[in-house]
């Protein structure tokens, strides 16, 4: 099967594409590796399955996509700031997985509601009150322990949700979930390993890890609180509460940490992240995420 040409040709293939500016599948020019931001659902059948409301599916994909996008942005903030190079690479890798999931989910949202909005339209041109992520993913990174605690909570809950969503009637959402469940398993494992290491480390590391858990725990409940769209278009997140709490409890027990006994962060007049009601931390995060796209509207590279 192998018909390899001279190795120089093989190695040059990236540069060949630079000379052939209209060589892409959509005739797009690419000047460097990784800049061909093709449609992440290129050629995937976009028809809605019968019985599924397009607006509900879009809103649901937006919720899950925004969770992934905002947490990806928080994770990459650790670049150049992580305690060790390996951790920086790890956190950036996890962010990349989430960014990939976000691209697919936002693209699906723009298709399903019939607006034809692209992933970029949705990521760069919505205001903070139009984002539907839970507040858990938007709070500032805090220290390493807080970030690990947040990751542990999110990855455990999202892994369980994706597992259920792999059987969703929308084939695109089901495929994202089936792919994502394995990625989230690696995220959960990473967060678990650090929780054990810090919790079962020195008294000081245990104290810091416990403080991180205590600070993030009030944001957990929102992950289990159903918005009507989730009930109509997806999985009732309340179903996840018991298995997720059991899993988290097992990790914390192993780490010698205590399950925090703190009340959940209250919604505002019954509204929280899924309704577009966020903490003051989301605005500055989005400003950084969106500033280049807004300074140069429509620019390509």
């Amino acid at each position, binding site marked *: *099967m192998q*018909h*390899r040409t001279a190795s120089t040709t*093989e*190695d040059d*293939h*990236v540069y060949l*594409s630079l000379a*052939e500016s209209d*060589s*892409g*599948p959509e005739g797009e020019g*690419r000047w460097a*590796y*990784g800049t*061909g*931001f*093709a449609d*992440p*659902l*290129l*050629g*995937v059948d976009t028809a809605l399955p019968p019985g599924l409301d397009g607006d509900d599916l879009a809103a649901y994909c937006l919720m899950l996509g925004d969770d992934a996008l905002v947490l990806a942005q928080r994770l990459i903030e650790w670049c150049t700031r992580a305690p060790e190079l*390996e951790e920086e*690479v*790890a956190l*950036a*890798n*996890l962010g*990349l*997985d*989430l*960014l*990939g*999931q976000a*691209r*697919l989910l936002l693209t699906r949202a723009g298709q399903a509601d019939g607006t034809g909005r692209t992933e970029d339209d949705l990521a760069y041109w919505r205001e903070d009150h139009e984002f539907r992520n839970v507040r858990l993913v938007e709070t500032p990174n805090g220290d390493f322990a807080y970030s690990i605690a947040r990751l542990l909570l999110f990855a455990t809950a999202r*892994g*369980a949700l994706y*597992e259920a969503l792999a059987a969703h009637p929308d*084939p695109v959402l*089901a*495929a*994202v979930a*089936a*792919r994502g469940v*394995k*990625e989230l*398993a*690696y995220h*959960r*494992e*990473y967060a*678990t390993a650090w929780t054990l290491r810090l919790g079962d480390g020195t008294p000081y590391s245990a104290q810091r890890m416990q403080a991180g858990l205590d600070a993030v725990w009030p944001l957990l409940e929102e992950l289990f609180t159903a918005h009507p769209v989730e009930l109509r278009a997806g999985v009732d997140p309340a179903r996840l509460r018991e*298995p*997720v709490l*059991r*899993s988290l409890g*097992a*990790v914390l027990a192993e780490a010698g940490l205590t399950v925090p006994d703190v009340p959940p962060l209250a919604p505002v007049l019954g509204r929280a992240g899924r309704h577009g009601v966020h903490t003051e931390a989301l605005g500055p995060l989005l400003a950084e995420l969106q500033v280049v796209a807004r300074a140069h509207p429509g620019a390509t590279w």
Partner: protein
Amino acid sequence: MTAVTTREARAWEVASAVPDPELPMLTLADLGVLAGIEVDAGEGGEGDGGHGAGGAVTAWLTPTYSGCPAVAEMAADVDRRLRAAGYRDVRVRLRLDPPWSTDLITAEGRRKLAEAGIAPPRPGAAAAAFAAAGPVPLALGPTRTAAGAASAASAASAVTCPQCGAADTEELSRFGSTACKALWRCRACREPFERVKEI
């Protein structure tokens, strides 16, 4: 039917030789990313002197990780190779289901990885690692393997050093230079090496 088969075999041969942008020692077929190819009979469109390249050709790719930044490059490369081979109507499509897994890397692909100094995923290990469902604490793969007390089973499951072949190896970091690789070290020859993670 034979004609169609031949046509598709020829298109497959072209598309399957495209190297992966991040692991260029592997082809997209070695990697299991090339998921299928279909050539229309192209009735009345045989304008290529009988090479069967007149019909529309569709190549399906299954992306590896959700965030793999190489997907656009792969699609463009397959498109370009097929056009260079004389196909005028080329479509590259993504296929998300079933999801990609390192279990799809061929034996030939694993051999080439090892030859390039990258420890390949162990065959079938991804399916085994994810067989147990449910949100419980888990350990995906070893962080250290050793030759000591080497039963046949543990030797088969060891992560062996691609430099010296020793089984006494340890993980340095589960995340490496690309989404698909982890960083390991051989405790025998002390050389660090990359390993394709099982997923």
